[in-house]
């Protein structure tokens, strides 16, 4: 049995990693690029993004990207191997020209700025190259941004005072390296009268900082180590995933909300099972009778009604005060405002009163599937040989059903149960939304709306963790219920 559990546990590791990777991938795909983030702030629907605003604004956005790991490549970092020629090519593609899509051009340009310290060396080489005069302007801007690594509060604890000061001075210094230029339909042209002087400063800057931006010593380790995935996973497993939008650690946000969802969903699952299993058994024992047909049809009717529809109907008809009187049920939350001061029995009644409609809406749809599975399984068992033998022995019908058939027909129910734990965590968005219950489901919706990637990542990981625990419990239960599983693994 222990070998079996161990084997299951080991299998979970690749599954967990796989799921994490997929979630991370989806998050990366949906997150905004630097150009989109900047557009969003520069006046929304087509606000003017003038050069001045960009010059200071872009540093701030860079800082945000650098602190969340969004500036790094997702899985493999080959930036240390980018050659000067490649950078020249990239810079050229950011030039305006007839037929060039501004949208695409802008994206390429901002993506280049994000590439960070590995690009400083080739950019410095370009600026030093007389033959590439037209690129000196854009290359110097890119260099000033690639070399920009603002301090964040964690750095204050991590870095020595001297290093902090060095970084601050460097960040300040890089601004003065920018060679003014214009980017028009005819391409780049430098407008800076101090161009030559600034080029010399760049050369000098590179000389002084070659250590910090050295490629040869860092590029191999960076291939896998300096990636968005590593960054996010590092923060995730150390509990440091921080939601910039909420100014709070992700796990604190989640811990505030999960209790509500957990309780209400656990209750709904218990209720659903307590009703569906007996209903399924009863249907199976009375197969073909009018009762069975009525139950089946009624359940399918319920199943076909979407919960948001039923929820809204209930809200309007049972939870709304009218001119003539009070509503039957409360319209929101899980307890009254003064619940804290109620006696405990009254408090429990208050909870039941508040929870009745949300729970009903959560449960009714699962009655159908659970009870139909139960019915089908029970029927299969009741038709099998061992049941016939039991009956032939003279065992009474209840004994046959509950002692012999039920145990075997529970295998499917256990499989269904494996997914329930993660449902518990995920919460039921619609019901929370309609009945104004601040649970985890609504938190996820908020996070998605705010594009709060760390929060989504954190809750998904917990949800996945629970799903895996659920599967493990189911696996163990299989072994308990089914001797064949046990015997196979010794």
């Amino acid at each position, binding site marked *: 049995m222990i070998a079996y559990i161990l084997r299951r546990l080991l299998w979970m590791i690749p599954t967990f990693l796989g799921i994490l990777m997929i979630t991370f991938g989806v998050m990366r795909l949906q997150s905004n690029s630097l150009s989109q983030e900047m557009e969003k702030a520069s006046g929304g629907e087509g606000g003017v993004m003038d050069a001045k605003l960009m010059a200071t604004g872009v540093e701030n956005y860079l800082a945000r990207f650098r602190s969340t790991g969004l500036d790094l490549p997702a899985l493999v970092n080959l930036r240390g191997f980018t050659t000067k020629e490649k950078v020249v090519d990239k810079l050229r593609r950011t030039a305006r020209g007839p037929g060039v899509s*501004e949208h695409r051009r802008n994206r390429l340009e901002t993506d280049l700025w994000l590439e960070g310290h590995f690009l400083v060396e080739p950019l410095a080489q370009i600026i030093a190259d007389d033959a590439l005069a037209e690129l000196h302007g854009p290359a110097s801007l890119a260099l000033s941004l690639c070399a920009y690594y603002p301090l964040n509060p964690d750095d204050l604890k991590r870095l020595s005072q001297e290093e902090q000061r060095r970084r601050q001075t460097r960040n300040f210094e890089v601004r003065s390296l920018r060679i003014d230029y214009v980017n028009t339909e005819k391409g780049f042209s430098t407008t800076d009268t101090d161009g030559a002087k600034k080029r010399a400063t760049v050369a000098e800057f590179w000389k002084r900082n070659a250590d910090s931006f050295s490629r040869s010593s860092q590029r191999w380790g960076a291939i896998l180590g300096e990636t968005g995935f590593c960054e996010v996973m590092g923060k995730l497993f150390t509990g440091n995933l921080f939601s910039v939008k909420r100014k709070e650690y992700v796990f604190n946000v989640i811990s505030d909300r999960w209790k509500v969802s957990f309780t209400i969903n656990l209750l709904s699952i218990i209720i659903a099972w307590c009703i569906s299993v007996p209903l399924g058994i009863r249907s199976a024992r009375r197969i073909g009778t009018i009762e069975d047909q009525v139950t089946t049809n009624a359940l399918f009717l319920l199943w076909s009604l979407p919960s948001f529809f039923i929820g*809204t109907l209930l809200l309007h008809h049972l939870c709304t005060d009218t001119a003539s009187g009070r509503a039957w049920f409360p319209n929101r939350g899980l307890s009254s405002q003064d619940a804290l001061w109620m006696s405990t029995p009254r408090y429990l009644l208050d909870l039941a009163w508040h929870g009745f409609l949300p729970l009903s809406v959560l449960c009714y749809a699962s009655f159908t599937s659970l009870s139909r599975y139960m019915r089908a399984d029970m029927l299969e068992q009741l038709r099998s040989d061992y049941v016939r033998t039991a009956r032939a022995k003279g065992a009474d019908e209840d004994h046959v059903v509950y002692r012999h058939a039920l145990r075997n027909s529970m295998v499917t129910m256990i499989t269904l149960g494996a997914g329930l734990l993660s449902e518990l965590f995920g919460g039921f968005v619609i019901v929370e939304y309609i009945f104004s219950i601040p649970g985890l489901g609504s938190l996820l919706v908020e996070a998605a709306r705010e594009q709060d990637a760390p929060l989504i990542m954190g809750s998904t990981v917990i949800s996945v963790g629970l799903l895996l625990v659920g599967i493990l419990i189911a696996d163990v239960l299989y072994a308990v219920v089914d001797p064949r599983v046990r015997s196979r693994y010794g």
Partner: protein
Amino acid sequence: MNAFKIALLAVVAVLLLIQVIDRAREPAQLQGVKASVDQLTVAIQQQVQETRKLARALESGRVSAIAPTGTAAVAAAPDGAKDGKPKEGVNFLQPYDSSAYHADQVGGTLRYLEIPPTSVNYLLENGSSTADTYDLINDTLCTNHPAHPLDWYESLATSVVITDDYKTYTFTIRKGVMWQKPPLAKRKGYEWLDKDVELTAKDFAFWLEMIRDPNVQCPQWKGYYESIVDAVAVDDYTFRVRWSKKEYTNLDMTLGLRPLARHVYTRFADGSPIPAEQVPVIFNKHWFDEEKQHIGVGMYQIEVFEPSKTLSFVLNPAYWGVPYHFRRLEWDGVTKQPDAKLVAFKNGQVQEMDSLLTPSQYKAEILDGGEPRFDQKNGRAGPFGWERVHGLEGRSLYYYIGWNLRRPQFRDKRVRQALAYAFPKQRILKEVYFGLGTPQVGPVNPDSDYFDKSLVDFAYDLAKAKAVLAEAGFVDHDGDGWIDQVIDGKKVDFRFRASYYGANPNWPKVLSVYKDSLQQIGIELVPDPAEDNELRRRMDDKDFDGLCGGWLSGLNVDFQQIWHSKFANEPKSSNYPGFANKRADELADKLRLTFDEPERIAIAKEFQRIVFDEQPYLFFRNAENIFIWHNRKASDNDQSEVLEGVTEGLDRYHPLYNRTKLLWHLRN
């Protein structure tokens, strides 16, 4: 016997469960008691402050100033210089006006549906709900009067003198204004916060210092203050801001500056000072924000703040000015679904809903009489009140279709005028929006003094549209049913795509009505929905024919961003239709340098006439919303103290009024 045992066991189990839950609830109850005690303490402090004020007034023999009613407390009439109109060399601020404050009306809690922000640090988070929070908890140097929005009044500054060709602003800061004490000050270890700190000029300088520091992550703000030369606290009560150039838009930004609690943000949680060079870095992730605290010098102070969930305010007992009339305000962010919001309103859990009734809810609940507690005819007569209000957050919101003037078919202004003649504006407003909206006729907020009332909108007239198009050369030459013309040697059929944001439920309806109308005069309109990112791409690449959009516009005007030709070919510009008119450019430039109001109004009116004639946009709808409120106490069950009727409090010192309804004419 067996059944008896089971029953007994069940009873014991239930009793045990109750006992366990009882124990589990104890810590929360204790916390509740503590919170109540804290609330009581604040209330007592408030009483003490009021009594002290009264005592001081009695001593100085100015009792009448304590409970001003009507116009008793209006300060001296403007002497000509202090008329609130910006001018150089003199203090032009009108005196602080406390006339609409009625001490006898103070009381009660107002609950309304507004989703609290995720963070209340306005520098780092500039969403609209953070802005609303800030209006309640913090004040600005000077303020606009709701009834005279273009005039400036004293607030935290008692005077401002502009010199150096409108480039230098020197403020005198009001004395004796105290920073609020955060609820955190009552917690162990934070006693250092529990002391009186006076507002000084340094707090204003600190606000700008943080914005302008490259380490502070507030890109949204930085652009506005780029051209400031310096901002210094000359002494504790003198604050000076110098700009590098004269610009009218600097006026709003300078007079609207706020203070930032320097005594908190420059310290660690234990009260020890943060080294100066680390202040901006730490500001991005400051312990005070993580504790969900924020303070200002405004009329309300934050009581409880749970991001995105709840936010409550209580009157600041030490407030220097006259506050709103409600003792407490509560924002409810839990209820988000439109139906659930309406139910919460009907059940009396919130007493106000602002711009939350959707057009279809308006039709069902009010127009069709679905909810008898609304009086269909007179919004103020029923137990529930309702009123149509313009715009959003104190600004008007107008919708339009912007034509891409680079496309051959839109080049001629007669064509654009014809497109306006062919647009059944009134019908669309009535059928799609159920009358919630007024026709927009130009680029200026119709509530503003700058609006040119002499503009007469294009009346729906298909025959006229057809005639104008023929005059511009667009007729059906090839008999295929669509009008066409040879432009630049190429035959152009009049066919265009109208891009709109796909998630907007109303544009498809509007466009389908317009499409029918245009079809009758031989123009083909193809509605072309796009998601956000794709819509931005179309704007960036100027890859659209018509683009459906909306702009928020305040009461003041500035035309450069949207209409100046210098932005016509700029990437990412707001002038994406590519509008270029020499006279309009001159006017827009001149407006930036003009501070004299009558002159500004004349410029703005001439500008509007040009844009109206040119029709680069098909100006469409000025949005209206339905504001609803409880005319009576929330419900019989509601034990909380609520004002007699919210309408009673809907005066200038009512949050609802101030927040969104700048131009409400109440007590009519």
